């Protein structure tokens, strides 16, 4: 066979991975595909750190009086777990990794509208991450990721300023990425690619980008004011001097609620792509699903007050926010019905990406439904501040968003790396993750209903069984996450070489080799078909 020993793939043509070598070609790249991989490595790093903090928390909570750390340290653990997982893993994850990689490919362009800005976004993200890591090493932060004032601004003596600077800086990465995507999708679509021929993943990314662009600046100014408060103690958020802590909360949640839609919408887009491919059917109600993405983005900005039902907000404002929160559930539910209708009478196969997508639908539905209890004022009074909330958002963020991210990685991995991973191991780890996840978080619904508060380093003894179950589940979940890390890395060297379209999927990204050449397409394609034209494909490729 081959005698050359230096290059792992002797026979593969020039693609974006082997186009250039050396650290400079990576750190100074403007190729959106390489930037996507830079993000992939970085967010995996932060995921491990955030996951490690979660692991310590669950270990601590196996005993009612706490098994591991002092309460002050416990406060720092849940704060940094939240900050890292939200700002440095979930928010970038699908947009910065899969979005960066796929948006130009899916629209038939050679790159994003602003490639250098794209690279700058990554560097900004890294600098923000470094500030946050510094704050963790230099003593940590104990305010909760929500940084509620006046504790964070006036009373806490932890590294609030450092982490505020880190989050502030990283926010601009998000803003610039969103801006880049919006301009790209508007201005650089291939000939014939009308809005209603776009894959639904792009509708989801577009809606997400609207949120990133309009919401994140408000977080930036809020964090900026918080840092000024912490440094100068002027008092706009402190009741002693006439300020209002709720002003901080309004400003904070105006971004942070839509932020959860930044985390879930791209995952929904991934699920649409996977369901269509592995049911060999076009998505039922394409336009409705597309519009629902935009509706979620818009309505998501109108509901932030539901985080403030019990903090002193006016009851009448609470009523308005409660009503609007019920409304925002509707487009999400519409999507679930549409995916289910797509599955009906589809020709379904259960490879790993499909397992993640199906898991998403079930777990996201549970998470979303439990949100309805929280949207009603009366039940929220009982459930707010308990483990019910923790379980609710983990069902959506982990059961939903992370499963969507993993499903997307498994779906597009052959395109990204030019290699296939072992499907048996992939299906096994999907099952382990599903089991581990439910074992971790379902008991937390019960704990919350029974009244166990969140963010507490100790709890009444009668809650121990459920807590131990949850911690056991967390270990299983952790193992489930480790396995893909291993086989993905393994596949890059030893996995079977992937062809251009191993799944027989529709979409422009599958029309170019795996991995794609740096310029994406030898010739810019012309689009003549609707998205998900599977019935014709089905006959052609499944002979």
């Amino acid at each position, binding site marked *: 066979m081959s005698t050359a020993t230096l290059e792992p793939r002797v026979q593969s043509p020039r693609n974006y991975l082997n186009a250039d070598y050396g650290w400079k070609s990576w750190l100074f790249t403007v190729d959106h595909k390489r930037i996507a991989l830079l993000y992939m490595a970085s967010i995996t790093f932060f995921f491990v750190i955030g996951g490690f903090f979660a692991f310590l928390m669950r270990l601590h909570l196996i005993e009612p009086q706490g098994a591991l750390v002092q309460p002050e340290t416990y406060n720092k653990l849940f704060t940094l777990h939240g900050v890292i997982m939200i700002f440095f893993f979930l928010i970038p994850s699908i947009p910065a990794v899969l979005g960066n990689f796929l948006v130009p490919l899916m629209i038939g362009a050679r790159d994003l509208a602003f490639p250098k800005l794209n690279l700058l976004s990554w560097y900004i993200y890294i600098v923000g991450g470094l500030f946050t890591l510094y704050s963790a090493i230099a003593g940590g932060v104990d305010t909760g990721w929500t940084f509620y004032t006046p504790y964070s601004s006036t009373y806490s003596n932890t590294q609030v300023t450092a982490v505020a600077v880190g989050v502030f800086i990283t926010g601009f990465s998000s803003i610039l990425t969103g*801006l880049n995507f919006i301009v790209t999708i508007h201005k*650089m679509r291939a000939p014939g690619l009308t809005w209603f021929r776009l894959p639904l993943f792009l509708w989801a990314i577009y809606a997400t980008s609207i949120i990133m*662009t309009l919401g*994140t*600046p*408000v977080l930036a*100014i809020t964090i900026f004011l918080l840092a000024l408060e912490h440094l100068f103690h002027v008092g706009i958020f402190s009741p002693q*001097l*006439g300020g209002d802590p709720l002003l901080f909360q309004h400003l904070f949640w105006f971004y942070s609620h839509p932020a959860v839609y930044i985390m879930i919408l791209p995952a929904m887009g991934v699920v649409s792509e996977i369901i269509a491919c592995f049911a060999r059917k076009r998505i039922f109600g394409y336009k409705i699903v597309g519009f629902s993405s935009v509706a979620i983005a818009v309505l998501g900005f109108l509901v932030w007050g539901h985080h403030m039902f019990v903090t002193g907000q006016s009851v009448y404002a609470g009523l308005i926010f409660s009503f609007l929160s019920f409304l925002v559930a509707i487009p999400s539910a519409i999507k679930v019905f549409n995916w289910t209708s797509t599955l009906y009478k589809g020709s379904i196969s259960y490879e790993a990406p499909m397992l993640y997508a199906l898991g998403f639908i079930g777990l996201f539905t549970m998470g979303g439904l439990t949100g309805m209890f929280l949207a009603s004022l009366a039940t929220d009074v009982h459930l707010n501040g308990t483990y019910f909330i923790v379980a609710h958002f983990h069902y959506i963020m982990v059961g939903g968003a992370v499963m969507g991210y993993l499903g997307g990685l498994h779906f597009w991995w052959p395109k990204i790396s030019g290699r296939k991973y072992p499907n048996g191991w992939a299906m096994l780890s999907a099952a382990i993750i599903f089991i581990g996840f439910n074992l971790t978080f379902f008991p937390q619904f019960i704990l919350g209903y029974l009244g166990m508060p969140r963010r507490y380093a100790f709890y009444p003894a009668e809650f121990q069984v459920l807590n131990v179950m949850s911690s056991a589940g967390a270990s299983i979940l952790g193992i489930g996450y480790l396995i893909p890390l291993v086989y993905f890395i393994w596949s890059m060297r030893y996995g079977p070489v992937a062809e251009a379209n191993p799944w027989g999927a529709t979409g422009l990204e599958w029309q170019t080799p795996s991995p794609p050449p740096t310029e994406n397409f030898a010739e810019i394609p012309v689009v003549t078909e609707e998205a998900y034209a599977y019935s014709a494909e089905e006959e052609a490729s499944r002979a």
Partner: protein
Amino acid sequence: MPEPHAEHAEHIGLAHQFEDLSQQHDADTFGIWLFLVTEIMFFGGLFLGYAVLRWLYFAAFDGGSHVLDIRLGAINTVVLLGSSLTMALSVRSAQTGNRRALVLFLTLTMILGGVFLGIKAYEYHQKFAEHIVPTLDWAPEGEVLARLAPGGLNHAELYFFLYFAMTGLHALHMIIGMGLLFWLIRRARRGSFTPSYFAPVEVVGLYWHFVDIVWIFLFPLLYLIGGRY
């Protein structure tokens, strides 16, 4: 920014991801507009803080506003509007390919921006002289104290915090704008801009006008509250 292609004059400044200069110009201007929309939300948070605190403590805002120098505020408004005029004329000069006028108007814009910042610096200096800088030097006395006391000194401190935060953030944006103008002037003098490639001038122009619009609102909201009768 983009790498120039040597072959065709039409391709000067065309970046590899775009099909032609028209698409690139469209993308660049749409991009800066989106960025300005993010700036609306960024400053918007401060305007919300202003709205809330003014709703709660109107008397303090009234007193605080009286302490500001309305003449300097008005002069600064006129200066900044003038700089917007010269900026608009710069873009026009680029559109018509008039290099000397382009350099002249960009320079005038920069000079007017500098005048604005100079007056602002003097105003800040005045605040220190009158000891009405929150936390750093807060000890109002004499006539200033008489103006601020009726609304409550704590609440007046909140007003001045907003004053410094809003005008400070605005000034920071002005300084960035000055840097961008300097960069533009250098490129303009080298003849980088033609009637078919002048997007950087237009982009900086749009940014500059936005910063002007923020001041158009800051002036009445901070300097003209209540009335001086």
